[in-house]
């Protein structure tokens, strides 16, 4: 799959190199809840953008707005250089899976894809059969193509949902929680599928409530928390935000905390039998010497960078539902 069309000339100058740009995009459902709170997404062309956030943080609602399923309360967006007023003209270049796959249970996988293709007003008619088979093949469903959708496993359903987006070459794929509910094996399969799609030059915008499921494949991430975009940028930038900390196990935490304070370490937290602080570039062996000098019984000392998961939890707040 290749980029068959370049961005049209009417692209706004600032968004020309972006697959998705939103500005102040907001959605309030009837009932007064602000599901998406004025977010400014910037999804670079050719990136794999992980759209992360706990359940209910507004990911699906954002995706529904991008696809024209629901109408924004405020704000605008552009996709592939095309403004939302011309959304109809750009959607054929966007493959999508929203809120999990939805197909007819009484039709087979192949029949379901044929129906999607039949609904497409600009599908290439002579190649329909070949394109359907190719999409099934890409997601590894060729062997199960004639089974009824009803009989598919969750992983097969998710893959069929992705296959529907692959019926024609796309410049952008929007995948909403494609790994939701899958076992580790199924998750791995989806990840390798996404990698393969991205390798073909398609920009991929993939949402998940679990950072771990997508961090290996993402070049960029956006983190949502209760409707707000609390972080956006290259994954490496998120990673570098985590400062290394020192962790001391001791039977005398108050004295240890005092020593760390004298050394000028920040963010000292002390719990039962353990003290930790931001290392801030100080050599750990020097800290150890100071602790011993002050008579603190050191049972253990280590330094650690917070994991991406820790940063993610920090960004999205304590209410984060790790298990989904």
């Amino acid at each position, binding site marked *: *799959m290749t980029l*068959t069309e370049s961005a049209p000339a009417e692209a706004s100058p600032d968004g020309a190199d972006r697959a998705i740009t939103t500005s102040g995009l907001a959605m309030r*459902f009837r009932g007064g809840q602000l599901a998406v709170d004025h977010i400014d997404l910037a999804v670079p062309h050719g990136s794999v953008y992980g759209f992360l956030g706990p359940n209910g943080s507004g990911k699906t609602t954002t995706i*529904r707005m991008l*696809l*024209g*399923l*629901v*109408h924004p309360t405020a704000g605008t967006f552009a996709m592939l250089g095309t403004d939302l007023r011309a959304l*109809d003209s750009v*959607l*054929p270049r*966007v493959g*999508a899976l*929203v*809120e*999990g*796959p*939805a*197909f*007819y*249970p*009484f*039709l087979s996988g192949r029949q379901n894809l*044929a*129906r*999607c293709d*039949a*609904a*497409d*007003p*600009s*599908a*290439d*008619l002579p*190649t329909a059969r*070949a*394109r359907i*088979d*190719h999409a099934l*093949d*890409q*997601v*590894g469903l*060729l062997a199960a193509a004639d089974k009824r959708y009803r009989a598919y496993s969750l992983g097969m359903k998710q893959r069929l949902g992705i296959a*529907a987006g692959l*019926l*024609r*070459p796309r410049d952008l794929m929007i995948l909403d929680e494609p790994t939701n509910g899958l076992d580790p094996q199924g998750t791995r*399969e989806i990840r*390798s*599928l996404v990698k*393969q799609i991205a390798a073909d030059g398609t920009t991929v915008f993939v949402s998940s409530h679990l950072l771990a499921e997508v961090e290996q494949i993402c070049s960029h991430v956006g983190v949502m928390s209760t409707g707000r975009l609390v972080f956006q940028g290259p994954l490496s930038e998120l990673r570098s935000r985590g400062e290394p900390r020192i962790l001391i196990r001791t039977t005398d935490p108050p004295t240890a905390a005092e020593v760390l304070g004298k050394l000028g370490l920040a963010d000292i937290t002390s719990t039962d039998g353990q003290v930790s602080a931001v290392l801030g570039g100080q050599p750990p062996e020097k800290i150890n010497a100071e602790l011993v000098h002050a008579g603190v019984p050191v049972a253990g000392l280590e330094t650690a960078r917070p994991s991406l998961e820790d940063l993610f939890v920090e960004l999205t707040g304590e209410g984060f539902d790790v298990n989904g």
Partner: protein
Amino acid sequence: MSTASVTEVPQSTPAPGAAPVRHWLRFFRSELRNVFLRPRNLALLAVLAGAPVFLGMVLRINTPAPGSGGPGAGAFVGQIAGNGVFLSLFAIYVLLTVLLPLAVSVVSGDSVAGEAGLGTLRTLLTVPAGRTRLLATKYATIVVFCFAATLIVAGLGLLVGAIFFPVGPVTLLSGDTVPLADGLARLALIVCYVALAMSALGAIGIALSTFTQHAIAVMATLLVVVIISEILDAVSQVAAIHPYLPSHFWFSFDALLRTPIAWSGVLHGLASFAAYVVIFGVIAWARMRRADITS
């Protein structure tokens, strides 16, 4: 994940603008297949087909005296023993009260609400099928279903009537007798008239269907509308509103069984159906244009 079975990557180029009709026909065929191959809908059509057979057998066993019967359906009953063609008319008359509207309710409930309930509405709209295009295709399919359902009732009525009873020149309600071919032509017109009446009901159904994701709610609401309309139509105290009731002109097809044909009654009926199609078509369209798809 790739196997060797597909070696060439098929390329889809944007289709030239001259092909929207072919694309639409393809979508329309897919829609027809979905409606007509759905086991539940096939069961409905089987019930509609079974009803004339059942009526024919009952009337064969317990043949009404020639010329007996009263107004309405009774006008046909008395003639069945003399001419099997009237079984077809009798079956249409009987089924038009509840069973045909029920079938239309089920299919129009499915049309948009059913897709929303399955979630396939978002799948189709992200293809993107186009909201107006989807609605138009859905309604065209409902119209085809209305014609098919009416034709099945009339056709089986005719077939069973011809097996159980003699068939010959048709004595009209006005007393004249016309050749069989003329009678069958009038039957064909009646089938079209009734199918259009059901299509107008389908327009109300598809409009309701755009407001919910529960197909069953649409079905129930539409049936309630039909029953209330039929009840009000029988209450002479509210005669002023009778011409505006959706079911008021459904049975006016007997005008086609007179010589000369009372066209004014038929045309009033067609105008009423057209008005319902336009009004509810616009409601459905306006709703579909703006609706937030959150299913």
